[in-house]
């Protein structure tokens, strides 16, 4: 277990946790927030995998603009999921 692997394990755990949160929240705004956190961690993971180009792209497009687009779409539709 090298330190890098430990670090990766933590990050990947965080990725899975945020992904579960994205799916689990009934409030779409919270989902979007969790998605932004997911993108953040994903970019850090790319960074760890020695892909800085991809990390910048994921940072710029994934975390910044996708969040904005999701928020605008939620504003254009409605905020809460339907009850089953």
């Amino acid at each position, binding site marked *: 277990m090298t*330190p*890098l692997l*430990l*670090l990766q394990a*933590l*990050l990947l*755990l*965080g990725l899975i*946790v*945020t992904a579960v*949160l994205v799916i689990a929240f009934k*409030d779409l*705004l*919270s989902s*979007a*927030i*969790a998605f*932004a*956190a997911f993108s*953040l*961690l994903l*970019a*850090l993971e790319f*960074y*760890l995998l*020695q892909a*800085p180009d991809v*990390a*910048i792209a994921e*940072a*710029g497009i994934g*975390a*910044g*603009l996708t*969040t*904005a687009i999701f*928020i*605008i779409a*939620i*504003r254009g539709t409605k905020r809460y999921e339907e009850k089953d």
Partner: protein
Amino acid sequence: MSIWLFTVTVLAALMLLAMVRLFKGPTSADRVVALDAINTLVVASMIVLAAAFRQILFVDVAIVYALLSFVGTLYIAKYLGGEL
């Protein structure tokens, strides 16, 4: 274990802790606060990792990150304030 990697590991653990607030946060505003904290921690770890990997140019990723997640936060805040 180099000191840089140790630092990043601690920061990653802190991110996981902040995710607790992301999960629990009674309101969306609390979740945004957690997102903001994770965001700061990610930027810090990116800067530290640049030193850890001896890759000077990786700091660019951190700058992009600090800029772009700010935009995401602003969009969320604007929606949350009912102004979008």
